[in-house]
C-alpha cells in the first residue's frame, strides 16, 4: 500500500486585521516524521502552529488529517465536538511555557491522568499507575507523582507536559519551542528525551523553533518561514548545509554554531 501523509495543510491563511500573519502556507507531515518550522520571531511560526492545532481559527485553507480510523477529515471544517475529541485523543500540543499546558495546582499524576479521565477512565488505581509509568518514561522521579508541578524545575515541568500529552498515544504532536527558556544542559536532556520518544512511539511531530541546533537534532525536514510565508523547505541537513534562499543563508550564517 502506498503510504499517505498523516497531515496535509493547504493554503492556510490567518490575518490579524489588515496584517497577514500566515499567508498560503502548505506542508505535508508523514507518519513518524518530525517536521521543523524555523524562522525569526514574528515570522508566523507560532500562529501557523496554533491554526493547525485548532487553537486559533484560520481565515482560509484546509488542514487534512488522516484519522486512526482511516478517513481523512478537514480539521478546520469538522464539527466542534468531533474536532475537540480528536485533539484530545489523537493530537497533542506542547506549549513553550509549561504553565500554559499544565495545571500547576494539580498533582503530576492528575496532570498526566486528565486526558485519560476525559476519555472515560474511572479507576483511580489504574490512572495513578499510568501516571507513574509515564513519569518514568520522561525521566521524572516517580516518587514525585503526587507533587504539584509548581514545585518542579522548568525542565521537569516541560517533561511532565510531554508525558501529559503522550499518555493517550497521540499520532500527531505539535510543539511550540519546547526547549525555549531552558538552560543548555537541561535543553540537551530534553532533546535526548524527545528524540527517544519520537523514535520509540513513532509519533509524527511538528516542532516550531528559532533554534537551528534544536532543528538539526530533532527534525527530519525543515520549513523556513519569513513574513508569514514559507521561503524554503527541504531535508534538514540539505537545508542547513546548503541554504538556497538568501534569508535561509542569513539565518544559517547568523547561528553561532550549527
Amino acid at each position, binding site marked *: 500500500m502506498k503510504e499517505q501523509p498523516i497531515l496535509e495543510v493547504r493554503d492556510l491563511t490567518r490575518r490579524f486585521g489588515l496584517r497577514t500573519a500566515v499567508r498560503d502556507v502548505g506542508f505535508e507531515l508523514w507518519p513518524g516524521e518530525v517536521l521543523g518550522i524555523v524562522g525569526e520571531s514574528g515570522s508566523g511560526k507560532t500562529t501557523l502552529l496554533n491554526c493547525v492545532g485548532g487553537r486559533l481559527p484560520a481565515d482560509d485553507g484546509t488542514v487534512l488529517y488522516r484519522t486512526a480510523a482511516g478517513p481523512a477529515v478537514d480539521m478546520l471544517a469538522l464539527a466542534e465536538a468531533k474536532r475537540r475529541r480528536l485533539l484530545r485523543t489523537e493530537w497533542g500540543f506542547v506549549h513553550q511555557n509549561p504553565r500554559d499546558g499544565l495545571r500547576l495546582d494539580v498533582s503530576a499524576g492528575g496532570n498526566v491522568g486528565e486526558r485519560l*479521565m476525559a476519555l472515560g477512565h474511572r479507576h483511580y488505581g489504574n490512572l495513578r499507575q499510568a501516571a507513574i509509568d509515564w513519569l518514568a518514561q520522561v525521566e521524572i522521579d516517580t516518587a514525585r507523582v503526587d507533587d504539584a508541578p509548581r514545585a518542579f524545575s522548568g525542565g521537569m515541568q516541560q517533561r511532565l507536559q510531554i508525558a501529559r500529552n503522550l499518555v493517550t498515544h497521540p499520532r500527531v504532536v505539535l510543539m511550540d519551542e519546547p526547549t525555549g527558556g531552558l538552560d543548555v544542559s537541561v535543553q540537551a536532556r530534553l532533546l535526548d528525551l524527545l528524540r527517544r520518544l519520537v523514535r520509540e512511539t513513532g509519533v509524527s511531530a511538528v516542532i516550531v523553533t528559532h533554534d537551528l541546533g534544536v532543528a538539526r537534532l530533532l527534525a527530519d525536514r525543515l520549513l523556513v518561514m519569513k513574513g508569514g510565508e514559507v521561503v524554503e523547505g527541504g531535508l534538514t541537513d540539505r537545508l542547513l548545509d546548503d541554504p538556497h534562499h538568501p534569508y535561509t543563508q542569513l539565518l544559517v550564517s547568523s547561528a553561532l554554531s550549527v
Partner: protein
Amino acid sequence: MNAMTEPVAEDGYNFAFLDEQTKRMIRRAILKAVAIPGHQIPFGSREMPLSYGWGTGGIQVTAAVIGRDDTLKVIDQGADDTTNAVSIRGFFRRMTGVATTERTDQATIVQTRHRIPETRLAEGQVIVYQVPIPEPLRWLEPRETETCKMHGLAEYGAMHVKLYEDIVRYGRIETAYDYPVMVNGRYLMRPSPIPKFDNPKMDRMPALQLFGAGREKRIYAVPPYTSVKSLDFEDHPFEVERWEHCCALCGSNDSFLDEIVVDDSGNRAFVCSDTDYCGERRAQGHQGAGMPAGYGQAAADGAAPGRKGD
C-alpha cells in the same frame, strides 16, 4: 392549606415583592430549566433588599413561584430559627401574607440554604436552593465561554481531576459539600453547598427542585423523579458522612449531625442539624443521651442549636 383569612401583604408592595413582569421573566427561566434538567438558564437577577450571598437567588425563585395558598418553610443549615431563615421567612410573611411553617410535611415550598430536610419530600412540594456558584466547572476553567462549550459538548471527564486530587491528598474523596452530580445522565450540576450526605436524597426525588443563584444570575432545576448521580471512581465509590454518635436530643442515628462545642474545656455534643426533624422525633417520645452538663439550660430545653457556616 387554606388560611382562615385572605393573606394580606404589606401596603405599597406588589405580592411577593417583585413586580409581575419580573416574576414572569423568572418563571420563563424556571420553565426552561425544568425542561432541560441540570442546565443553567441565565435570568435577569434583580437587586433584592439583602446582600448577595444571603439567598437573593433563592428568594427570587420563591417569589416567582409562591401563590396565595402556599405554605412556606425556610431553613438555613437545616434549622428554622437561624438568622438567614428567620429573616427570609419574615420577609415573605410581610410581602405575601402567606402562611409559614416549620413543619417539612406541611410546607408546599421549602427554601433552603445548605441542607435538604431529613423528612422525605413528597410530590407537589417544591424545594428552592440558594446557590452561591452555579458553575461546577469553574474550578477547572475560569472562562465562561469555555465552560458553556464544555457543557454543550458534555466534556466532563476533567471534573474527575478534582476528585483524583482529593484521593492523592487525603486518601479518599474529601469533597464534603457541593459535591458534583450528573443530572439525567447529561448535565453536570453543582447541588449548592449541601453536604454530600444529602446528595442521595436528590436522586429521583418526588418534589420539584429549583436552584437560584442571584449574583451569578442563573437558574437551574431538577424535575421530579429525575436521576441525580454523584461522581466517583470505580475503586473509590461515592460515600456519605457517618457519625459514631446519635443525636444528643432525639437519639436519631440516621440524620445529619452538627458537632457543637458546649463549654470551655472542649466537651462536644452532636445534635440533628434539621431542627424540625429533631423536634418531631422528640414529640413522638424519642430521646437522646441529653446534652452535657455544661450546656446552657435554654438549649437543653430544646431550643435549636443554630450554627452559621462559612
